[in-house]
């Protein structure tokens, strides 16, 4: 069973995280202060850690720095009330794997946790991504469905690549915008939806089983099972 450590001093937030992650079938352990959190994190018995950036005494940055120094590569999702870009850069530089700003939607947090867990599983570098009959060649930079070449724009290619790497997982619009376009603000309108819609028209031609699905209220998922 996947074990997750939640280091969070605010009880309400912690309960919310635990409830959401337990709902996804994870075993969640809670450390309510930096000292216990650090001790548990250093034991290395977890698959992922959600880490509050601001903790009394030992703060989040110190914990992640200490972990990386001890060569513990457990993925860390930093959660912080500080949304400044510089704060984000600092958190990621110290060794955080992803950065989420408080207050957050639980489903967004869960989606990010899933992506991080998945990233850890995948050790071998791939040259071809394959979902059902959809193939994406990372070397030749081509995409085909049922052996028929698809004509994608560079941005569409990157969007599809990200979705295929994280297939069977809910990806929120913010996650897509951050990962594919590399910006950390809210693009606001439904523009991500339009990009997905366009990609979907190319990938899921009429008559083929659809691979890109909308998850109402959350985001998108690339899946062969729905």
């Amino acid at each position, binding site marked *: 069973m996947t074990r997750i450590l939640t280091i969070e001093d605010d009880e309400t937030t912690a309960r919310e995280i635990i409830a959401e992650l337990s709902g996804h079938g994870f075993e969640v352990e809670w450390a309510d202060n930096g000292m216990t959190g650090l001790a548990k994190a250093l034991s290395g018995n977890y698959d992922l850690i959600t880490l509050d950036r601001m903790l009394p005494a030992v703060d989040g940055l110190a914990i992640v720095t200490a972990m990386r120094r001890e060569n513990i590569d457990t993925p860390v999702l930093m959660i912080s009330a500080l949304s400044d870009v510089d704060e984000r850069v600092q958190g990621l530089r110290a060794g955080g794997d992803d950065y989420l700003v408080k207050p957050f939607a639980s489903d967004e947090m869960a989606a990010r946790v899933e992506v991080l867990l998945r990233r850890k599983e995948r050790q071998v570098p791939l040259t071809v991504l394959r979902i059902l009959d959809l193939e994406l060649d990372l070397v030749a930079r081509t995409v085909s469905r049922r052996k028929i070449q698809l004509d994608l724009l560079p941005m569409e290619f990157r969007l599809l690549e990200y979705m295929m790497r994280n297939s069977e997982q809910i990806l929120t619009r913010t996650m897509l915008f951050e990962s594919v*376009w590399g*910006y950390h603000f*809210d*693009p*606001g309108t439904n523009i991500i939806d339009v990009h997905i*819609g366009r990609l979907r028209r190319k990938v899921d031609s009429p008559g083929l089983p659809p691979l890109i699905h909308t998850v*109402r*209220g959350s985001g998108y998922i690339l899946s062969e099972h729905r």
Partner: protein
Amino acid sequence: MNIAKFSGTTTFRLTLIYSIFFTVCVIMLMGFVYWKTAREMTSRVDQILILEMRDFVGTRGDLLPAKIAEGIRRDQRHIYFYGLFSSDGSELAGNVSGIPSDLPRNGRIYQTNLISSSLPPLVARAAVIRLDSGEYLLLGHDVQQLAEFRGIMKGAFFWGGSLTVALGLAFGLVLSFRPLSRIEQIQRVCELIMRGDIRQRLPISGRRDELDMLTAIVNKTLDEIERLMSEVKSVCDNIAHDLRTPLTRLRALIYRAQQQGDAPNAMLEQVISDMDSLLLRFRALLRISEIENKQRQAGFKAVHLSDILEQAVAFFEPLAEDKSIDLSMSAEKLAPIQGDGELLFEAIVNLLDNAVKFTPVGGKVEVRLSQGNGGARVDIIDTGPGIAANERAAVLNRFYRGANGQCVPGFGLGLGIVMAVVRLHDFEFELGEAGSGTRATIFCRPFTLHRFIEKPL
């Protein structure tokens, strides 16, 4: 009116210090004149006395009383003293009643008080010589004039000095009156401002003195405070207005769900999506203050505007295509500018978002990068309904939505973000018209310098 208040002013203190300094200088000058004069007078009197002494010492002893009587008779002005005394000190001849006890009998000249038979005691230069016969001869010369001169000097020191200081005090008070009355004016205006009339400005005399400079600085600060206050006020008003509708709708939805008992999933999804759009507004608001709080220009790098524009256009291309809007871009080859690429992209995205949103189906949006006056300029021109000239300033305020835009989704915060980014970069933003549509322009010139040169304090 309070003297203590006046005596605290810079003018008063400067005047007082100056008059004291002036008095000290005058006293020193007068002292020097007195010292020089006294020395001159004394040395002349001493010369005369030395000549007289030689004359008397050369005279035979038995002729001395007659010579003394002759001298006294000749001395019409009563300035000479003669005295012949026996070895036991008794008076033999002359007009001096006794040798003063403090006068050494060694033939040298000293200053002393002499008591004459006819006159009150007088200050004089005098010498006593012991004659071969054992008698003492006293010769003296009145220097009362010198003492009187000293008295005059002392009086002049005292009266002149105190008069100068008193005049300085009075003058200082008078001079302080003007700045103080201006301070009082400023105080009155400030009281109005403190009571909430933020539109008041401190009076400027136009003399361009220190007080004017200070007043100008304060007025500039007040301008900025007024702008911020009105912004805060309009934000509060707008938040209240803008959020009431979706919140009421949400409440209705939840109420309906409650009434139905087992709420259908679609209804809950509607609630979540309404909530999300509400949260989006708050996030945009926070984003604006975040940009405004950013360490000024600390993370600036050289960025190519054409790259940013290309990326933004590519980002919006699908949306434009969906609405059959012709989105095109033209860029001159320009040198990179100093800026925050991510924030500039955000600003452009917001401008494009507005342009695409307000342009009707089949319209055109054009992005243009060119060399403007003093720096690069980015124009985003659409064929939407345009913004009336009198609405343009209001449009730049957060949360405002134009009368023509009521039916289009969007929260009016986009331009607030644009303004925040532009202000951070010290660029300039302008809304204008292009045909029937809107032209949004960012002038990427370092603007601080211009502002400073055009409007010095």
